[in-house]
C-alpha cells in the first residue's frame, strides 16, 4: 500500500484513518504503524535499527537512550504497580542495549479525581524501584487532564545509560549458529494482570516478574561474554520479540518448546484461557543471543544470579527462511509461529 518513493501524502495506516487498539498491541499492526509513520517521518538512522533503545555517541562517549509509555490497567497488580513498572521498563530497555543506567525522567499524565493516596503509593514505589535499580530520577513533568479524559494515571519514562562494552548488542548482529537463552520462566506479567482484571478474575498465585535487569546483564559482561543481541520480551511476549529479531537479522529462529521455562500455574492459566504463553508479556526477563561457544558459560553465569536461577537455552539461529520464527514441539514437529496482527491483551504495560 505504501510506496517508499512517494512521501507526499500516503493514506495513514489503519482503518479509515483511525487508530485502533491493535496499533498498540506490539504485533504486526504496531510494527506497521512504527515503520510506515514514525520511522518514515523521523528518518533517524538509529530509529531504523528498531532496537529497544538508540545508541548515540557524544564526544566519543557511547550512550544509550530510550523512552517508554506506561498505561497498565489496573495500576496496582500482584508483584508490582505502574510506578515500579515504569522504572523497570526503562532500565531494562537500557540493559538490552548493554548500557548501565545513569539517569531517568518521568512524565505523569493524571486524571482529575485520581486519589492522592494512590498517587503517593505509586511515586514511593517508583522511588524504591529506582534506588534498587541504581538509577536516579532527575527530571519530570506533571499534567492533569479532566475527569473522563484519561484513565487514572499514565507514566512516561526516559532513560540514559552508558555503554561500557563494545560492540553494543543489536538485532542486526545476530548470526546463523547463534544460541538463544532466556533468563527465566515466561508469561508471568501478562497473566498476573489478567488474573485481576474485573471481567476475568481468576484465582491464582501468579505474580508479575517485573524487575530491573542491569545487575544480571552486568554479571554476564563481567564473565567475559559479549551477547550479540539482548531484548526484554515485553508486549507481544517471546514470540513478538524473536520474530522481530529474526526479521531484522534476516535469519530464522527455532525454539525448542520443551526447553522454554514455564511455571505450572502459568501453563494451566494459559490452557484455561486459551492463550499461548509465547505471546504473553514479561517485565523481568532478558533474551540473550550468543555465539554457540558462549552458551554454557552464559547459562552458568545467569543461574548464579537470583534473577536467573531458571535460565534456559531455548533455541538456535539458522540461515534460510529469513524472518521466520519456528517452534519445535512434540508431537507435531517444527511449525512456523505467526505473531498476532493486533491486540491480544490490551494495556498490559
Amino acid at each position: 500500500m505504501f510506496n517508499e518513493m512517494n512521501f507526499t501524502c500516503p493514506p495513514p495506516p489503519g482503518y479509515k484513518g483511525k487508530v485502533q487498539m491493535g496499533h498498540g498491541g506490539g504485533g504486526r499492526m504496531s510494527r506497521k504503524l512504527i515503520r510506515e509513520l514514525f520511522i518514515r517521518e523521523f528518518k533517524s538512522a538509529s530509529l531504523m535499527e528498531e532496537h529497544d533503545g538508540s545508541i548515540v555517541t557524544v564526544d566519543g562517549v557511547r550512550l544509550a537512550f530510550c523512552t517508554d509509555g506506561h498505561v497498565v490497567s489496573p495500576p496496582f497488580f500482584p508483584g508490582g504497580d505502574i510506578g515500579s513498572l515504569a522504572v523497570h521498563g526503562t532500565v531494562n530497555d537500557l540493559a538490552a542495549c548493554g548500557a548501565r543506567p545513569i539517569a531517568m525522567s518521568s512524565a505523569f499524565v493524571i486524571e482529575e479525581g485520581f486519589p492522592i493516596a494512590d498517587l503517593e503509593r505509586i511515586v514511593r514505589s517508583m522511588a524504591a524501584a529506582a534506588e534498587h535499580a541504581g538509577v536516579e530520577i532527575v527530571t519530570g513533568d506533571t499534567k492533569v487532564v479532566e475527569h473522563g479524559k484519561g484513565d487514572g494515571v499514565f507514566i512516561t519514562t526516559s532513560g540514559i545509560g552508558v555503554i561500557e562494552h563494545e560492540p553494543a548488542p543489536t538485532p542486526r548482529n545476530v548470526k546463523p549458529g547463534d544460541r538463544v537463552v532466556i533468563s527465566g520462566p515466561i508469561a508471568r506479567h501478562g497473566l498476573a494482570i489478567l488474573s485481576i482484571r474485573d471481567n476475568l478474575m481468576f484465582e491464582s498465585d501468579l505474580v508479575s516478574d517485573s524487575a530491573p535487569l542491569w545487575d544480571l546483564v552486568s554479571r554476564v559482561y563481567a564473565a567475559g561474554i559479549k551477547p550479540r543481541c539482548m531484548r526484554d520480551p515485553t508486549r507481544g511476549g517471546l514470540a513478538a520479540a524473536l520474530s522481530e529479531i529474526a526479521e531484522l537479522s534476516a535469519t530464522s529462529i527455532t525454539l525448542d518448546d520443551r526447553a522454554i521455562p514455564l511455571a505450572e500455574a502459568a501453563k494451566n492459566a494459559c490452557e484455561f484461557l486459551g492463550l499461548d504463553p509465547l505471546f504473553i508479556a514479561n517485565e523481568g526477563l532478558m533474551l540473550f543471543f550468543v555465539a554457540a561457544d558462549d552458551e554454557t558459560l552464559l547459562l552458568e553465569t545467569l543461574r548464579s544470579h537470583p534473577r536467573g536461577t531458571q535460565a534456559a537455552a531455548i533455541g538456535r539461529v539458522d540461515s534460510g527462511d529469513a524472518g521466520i520464527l519456528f517452534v519445535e514441539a512434540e508431537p507435531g514437529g517444527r511449525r512456523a509461529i505467526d505473531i498476532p496482527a493486533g491486540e491480544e491483551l490490551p494495556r498490559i504495560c
Partner: protein
Amino acid sequence: MKYLDEYRDPKIARALVERIRSTTKRTWTIMELCGGQTHGIMKFGLDAALEGVVELVHGPGCPVCVTPAEAIDRAIAIARTPGTIICSFGDMLRVPGTSENLFHARADGGDVRVVYSPLDAVATARKTPNREVVFFAVGFETTSPAAAAALLEAERLALDNFSLIVSHVRVPPAIEAILDAPGNRVQAFLAAGHVCTVTGEAEYLPIVASRHVPIVITGFEPVDLLEGIARCVEQLEKGESRLENQYARSVRPEGNPAALRAIARVFEVVDYAWRGIGVIPQSGMRIRPAFRRFDAFERFPTTSAESSSESSSPCRSGEVLSGRIKPHECEAFGSTCTPDHPLGAPMVSAEGACSAHYRYRRVINKESLLCSTK
C-alpha cells in the same frame, strides 16, 4: 497438567499413527466438524502424518465463520446507536460483516466490549441501568446454554436494558446437509466433543442409522484426534457405521440435562442461513415469543444495516466451510486474503480453517516428528 500431558504424549501419538496406517487398505475421507479440531490437526501436523491413508476435510464448525454478514452488520448498526453497549466473544468482534467489523465500530466511538461469558454482559447491564446492553450470542450447542442462562438471569433480575442478538446454530442438521449435498466425499465424521458434552449422543444416532456413516465424538488434543480417526477408519474398513464416543471423559450419553432444559426453555429451532453455505433447515435458534423483549432485533427494529452483497468477493469461504476445497485452493488465500486483511471470516477467527492453514502451513512442515514414523 493432568488430562492434558497424556493426550499430547508423542509416543502414544506415534503408536496411533501406526495403528491407522496398518488398518487402512485405501484412502478414506473424514471430516472434523469443529474448528478447534481443525486447529489441533494443523498445529500438530496430523494431516501430514496421515497423508495417503486419511484425507482430513475441514468442517463448518467455526461459529463466527457461519454467522451471517447481515447479523454482524446489524450488530455494528446497534453499536453505533448512542447509549448502547455491545458485548461478545473476542473473535466475533474481528469478523467482518459486509465491509466492517465491530472493532471498527469501536474505533468510531461505539462501546464494544469483549466478554468471556454472557453472564458478564448481564452484570454490565445491571451496573449501567441507563444504557442498553446487547449480547451478540453466537456458537453451537456449546455456547447456547450460557446465552439461555444469561437471558433467564436477566429475567430473574427484571432487567429491562438487556437483550441478545441470537445467531446460535446446531450441528446435526449441518451434518445431514453435508451428506446430502451432491458430490459429497465425506465418509465419516469426528463430532465435536464440547458440543456433545451438552447435547449427548441422542441427536447423532438417527444420522448414523439413516445415512450409514460412522460418527466418532472426539476431543481436541492430538491423541484424542488420532484415536477418533483410528476408530472411524476401523469402522470404515469393516463396512460398519456406528456412533462411538472417544471423548468419554467429558461426554455422557445423555449430555447435560440442565443445559438442554435451558436451551429448550429459551430458544426454538428455526431454519437458518449459514454464511457462505446457505439455508439449512432446522439448523438455527430463535428466542421464543414469551421472551421476545430480550430479542435485540425487536428492541432495535429501526437500525437498518447497510445492504450486503458478497457475490463479487473472490473469497471462497463457503466452499472451505463445507469441505469442498482446502483453504490454499482459494486464489485469494495468502495473497489478497491474510489475517491482517481478511476477505472472509475463516481467515479471522481463531477456529477458522483458513487461519489454521495460514498460521501453521505458510511454511510447509517438512519435519513432522509423526511423519518420520512412516
